[in-house]
């Protein structure tokens, strides 16, 4: 019996539909059936786009029948993290503050994906406003890890990674501010990529920390992630922080003879089960002709403090616009004085969001600018210099994506600082603006471990080369039985 259509990779979906081996409608229907079956266990979606998804599939089928050109992602079904604006489709950021918000415009990445023929199958669950590492801070309930539904899927793009791992979509789009694409990718044993800052447009990404975040693809294979990156990357006149350059294209190539630096601070800070898998991964790479050596990145010790200073500071300001006056949820302003109305409306933020707003206001308050914010930025420069020095001798830096294995739901939720510490390996890439990818490295105690590969700014191709090399050699299982 042939494998169900929903197990196909993006490239296979595009080919299959183009060659009329199966129709887009069939494919989407099967996916919707799969979603119906596993969603009760996984809870990856906030909104499903059934009607529109099927309509677009039918339109694509007609196009194919009429012999028209279809795009490079024609028929690919994507889940989109619910903090990326989709015109006409609810975009809630898993928050009460945007409960009934329907964007008036599409994010640039959405426009590009739709032009390429992709079909949006639904909006994926996340930590409220992307602030969290487990998707437990969502008002729609946590997204569960498809490998063990008593455990967290990672965050904040938990819905994205889980939907891909659970075969509820071909691939997904998430956002990564401090590891939010790579963390859930690692926990769910899928591939997640954070591009160089400025490579992908943030127009339409609801801001959490603007100087740190990027939209990134999640897929079951490096190939799928590359296909999506090729469509979304490139400068955008609607985002002045994108780099002005020709549109990049990335390919899959197995390059030998590359050099990888294994970051000691990451492996030493990880659980033994995790670090064992990483050392195995380094061995695998060596067998493939890649040189691996241990290196040190001393400023890692300041990275989390720097990250949480900058992220909360920017968040406290970015979230100020949610006063429920122009959009939000239904609450009549009549009868209130404006300070009370604002405070009452904003009391609907979740706990973690409130905490970060307060911390952010604190670090920016009068007299503290030099002590926290400025110092945090200086740490960024320090880290960048250290990494650039290493990149003179090594093509990539590797290590575990997460220092721990996926933990039980509820385990760290009452201890914010303990929760923040899991980001130690991922924040470095956001602080320096450098690209990073997480690829499945295997399992420890039956739970997924991710290998993180980091490269210099705009050196995505090198990073992808090693990722692909490793993937082909390691052949780690991509989706659990559900």
């Amino acid at each position, binding site marked *: 019996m042939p494998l169900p259509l929903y197990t196909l990779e993006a490239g296979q979906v595009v080919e299959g539909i183009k060659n009329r081996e199966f129709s887009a409608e069939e494919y989407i229907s099967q996916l919707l059936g799969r979603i119906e079956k596993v969603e009760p266990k996984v809870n990856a979606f906030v909104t499903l786009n059934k009607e529109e998804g099927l309509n677009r599939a039918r339109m694509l089928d007609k196009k194919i029948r009429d012999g028209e050109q279809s795009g490079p992602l024609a028929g690919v079904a994507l889940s989109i993290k619910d903090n990326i604006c989709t015109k006409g489709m609810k975009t809630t950021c898993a928050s009460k503050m945007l409960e*009934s918000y*329907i964007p*008036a*415009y599409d994010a640039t990445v959405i426009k590009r994906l739709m032009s390429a023929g992709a079909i949006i199958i639904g909006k994926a669950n996340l930590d409220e406003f992307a602030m969290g590492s487990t998707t437990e801070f969502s008002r729609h309930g946590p997204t569960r890890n498809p490998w063990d539904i008593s455990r967290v899927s990672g965050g904040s793009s938990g819905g994205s990674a889980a939907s891909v791992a659970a075969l509820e979509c071909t691939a997904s789009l998430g956002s990564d501010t401090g590891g939010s694409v790579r963390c859930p990718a690692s926990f769910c044993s899928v591939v997640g990529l954070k591009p160089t800052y*400025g490579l992908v447009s943030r127009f339409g990404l609801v801001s959490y920390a603007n100087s740190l975040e990027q939209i990134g693809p999640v897929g079951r294979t490096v190939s799928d992630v590359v296909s999506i990156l090729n469509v979304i990357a490139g400068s955008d*006149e609607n985002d*002045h*922080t994108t780099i002005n350059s020709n549109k990049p294209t990335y390919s899959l190539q197995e390059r030998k003879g590359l050099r990888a630096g294994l970051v000691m601070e990451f492996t030493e800070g990880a659980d033994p089960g995790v670090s064992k898998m990483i050392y195995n991964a380094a061995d695998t790479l060596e067998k493939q002709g890649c040189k691996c050596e241990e290196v040190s990145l001393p400023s890692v010790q*300041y990275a*989390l*403090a*720097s990250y*949480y*200073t900058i992220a909360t500071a920017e968040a*406290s300001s970015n979230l*100020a616009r949610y*006063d429920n*006056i*122009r*959009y*939000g949820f*239904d609450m*009549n*302003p*009549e*009868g*209130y*004085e*404006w*300070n*009370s*109305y*604002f*405070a*009452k409306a*904003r*009391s609907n*933020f979740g706990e973690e969001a*409130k*905490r970060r*707003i*307060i*911390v952010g*206001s*604190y*670090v920016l308050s009068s007299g503290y600018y030099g*002590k*926290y914010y*400025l*110092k*945090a930025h*200086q*740490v*960024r*420069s*320090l880290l*960048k210099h250290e990494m650039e020095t290493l990149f003179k001798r090594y093509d990539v830096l590797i290590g575990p994506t997460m220092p721990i294995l996926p933990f039980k739901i509820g385990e760290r939720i009452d201890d*914010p*600082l303990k929760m*923040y510490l899991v980001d130690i390996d991922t924040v470095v890439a956001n602080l320096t603006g450098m690209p990073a990818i997480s690829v499945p490295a295997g399992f420890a105690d039956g739970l997924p471990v991710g290998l993180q590969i980091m490269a210099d700014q705009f050196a995505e191709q090198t990073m992808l080369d090693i990722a692909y090399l490793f993937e082909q050699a390691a052949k780690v299982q991509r989706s659990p039985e559900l």
Partner: protein
Amino acid sequence: MVVTREEVKHLGWLAKLEMSDAELQRYTAQIEEIISYLNMLDTIPLEQVKPIAMKKKFSELRKDAPENFEDAVLGTRYRKDGFVKGPRMV
């Protein structure tokens, strides 16, 4: 005391966040822990390091050509004669 309950209350006022007494209690303890952690930044001797900044050229700025946004922008149903209705000012 790294952060006092009063400070958290004042920050709540600045950020227009209404917090119950229980919340105030819980958050103050947690925020204190977080700020203590962030205080490590103070210990790093970094005066010489210049923060990196992305720069743009004057020629790369947006050209001054007006464009009308055709679709509906506002998402509230509390309107009057085109204005957005807001709470009273006093």
